[in-house]
């Protein structure tokens, strides 16, 4: 299969999984959880395989550093006790510099490595991380990373999509519970008001994800601004889509 076919097939599988879960609302029979796990896993694997095929060597060298940034900054944010995850800065960075496919692969692999090293219960959420990388790349393609407010806005939109994509996993696989008493209580409150489990986890995600991704995208914008132009222009994607248009115009 050609790489772009794999990426397209992976994206289709993920979308089909989500649509099935939302429309069919499988009950506690377990098929819902299985479809969520299997569909998202298959989709993520196809996207990883297709995306890495096309990565240039400089992008391959960037990805491990980006994943390390995700994990270490994510843990730093956890240690300082702020109510943000900040565990996707590296994903956004790769998405903006090397394109949506590379961003998606970085995202999914971050979850795989997080699972391998720190906490295996993260792994089912690989598809959300892939989605963040994809949307960051698409936002960069249309020029959102030329101005800070557009970067923040695309972060907000990405956060909304993240909440939608990850809610079936929270609902069907984890039954709405997380290691955090706060978020679990929020899910419980939404259920108490008569929402279904899926609706409750979606609403809980909509409280935390958009804010987190807005901050993440803005921080990434600032980091990219501080990077030397020579580094940013090493990536064919950033060059051909004029991701940082103003600077390029000055140099040309």
């Amino acid at each position, binding site marked *: 299969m050609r790489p772009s076919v794999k990426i397209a097939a992976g994206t289709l599988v993920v979308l089909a999984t989500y649509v099935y879960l939302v429309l069919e609302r499988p009950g506690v029979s377990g098929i819902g959880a299985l479809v969520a796990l299997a569909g998202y896993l298959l989709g993520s694997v196809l996207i990883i395989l297709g995306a890495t095929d096309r990565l240039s060597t400089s992008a391959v060298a960037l990805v491990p550093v980006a994943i390390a940034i995700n994990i*270490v900054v994510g843990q730093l944010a956890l240690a300082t006790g702020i109510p943000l995850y900040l565990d996707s800065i590296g994903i956004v960075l790769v998405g903006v510099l090397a394109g949506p496919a590379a961003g998606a692969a970085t995202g999914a692999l971050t979850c795989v490595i997080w699972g391998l090293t720190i906490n295996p219960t993260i792994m089912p959420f690989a598809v959300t991380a892939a989605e963040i990388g994809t949307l960051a790349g698409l936002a960069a393609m249309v020029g959102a990373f030329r101005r800070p407010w557009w970067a923040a806005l695309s972060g907000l939109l990405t956060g909304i999509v993240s909440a939608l994509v990850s809610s079936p996993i929270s609902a069907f696989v984890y*039954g709405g519970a997380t290691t955090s008493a706060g978020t679990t*209580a929020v899910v419980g409150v939404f259920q108490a008001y008569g929402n279904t489990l899926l609706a409750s986890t979606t609403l809980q995600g909509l409280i935390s994800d958009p804010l987190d991704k807005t901050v993440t995208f803005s921080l990434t914008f600032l980091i990219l601004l501080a*990077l030397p132009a020579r*580094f940013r222009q090493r990536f064919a994607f950033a060059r051909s889509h004029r991701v940082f248009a103003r600077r390029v115009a000055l140099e040309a």
Partner: protein
Amino acid sequence: MATLDFYQAGRSRVHGWNPVTKLSLSLTLVVTAFALPVLWWPVALLVLVLLPAVLASGVQRRFLATMSRFLLPVILLLFVIQGLFYPGGGQVLLTLGPLSVHADGLLFAARTALRLVVLTGSFLFLLLTTHPGDLMTALVARGLPPKISYVVSATLQIIPAFRQRAQGILQAQRARGLRTDTGLVSRVRALVPLISPLILGALSEVDERSIAMEARAFGSTARRTSYTVIPDSTAQRLARWLMLLAALTAIALTTTGVVS
């Protein structure tokens, strides 16, 4: 420095199995646990398959410690939330003022908790008994692109160094008077002088890395030979096919409605 993987070295037979066999076992356990809608089925899988495998590999202490660290809080919260707020309700078991505990909710919590134990336990078993490097080598031998294997292995090496650097930056900024112990806004503001030197420093190495990799023909698509050979056997090959068959049977039984 803390080690970065769960791997616990050992000389048991389970440690010597091909990583792909252990990966297939984990996947089969998860698929069958989630596919069959029978409450006691995950318990059977745990008692008959997973626990014997863990005991045979001698990693039971770390297995239990890590499992309870990850799952106890989740399962506890799951029972509280679903016992009280599960939609539908069913028989009321207990009334506490405005709140009441429903049987349906507890049943749902039990079902989800048992499946979570199988999901986490089977992967933890794989990670405890398999070195990540071996897993990657075995998967590359089966067609995983070497680029992915490089990304995983390189990340595992980078993270410890990275953590040390983060600690160093944190201490340096504190020495300069950065406060990380006051209100929310100041904490968020404190993150910027911590994160930016960390990330900018790390990215400055990427250039050198990619030049070094290109100089060693990293992107070459020629078929390579492997330095380490991962053992495999006919019995394991057969076992893998049987596990695939078992997983497919479980899915077929549920979708056709034989088991419900």
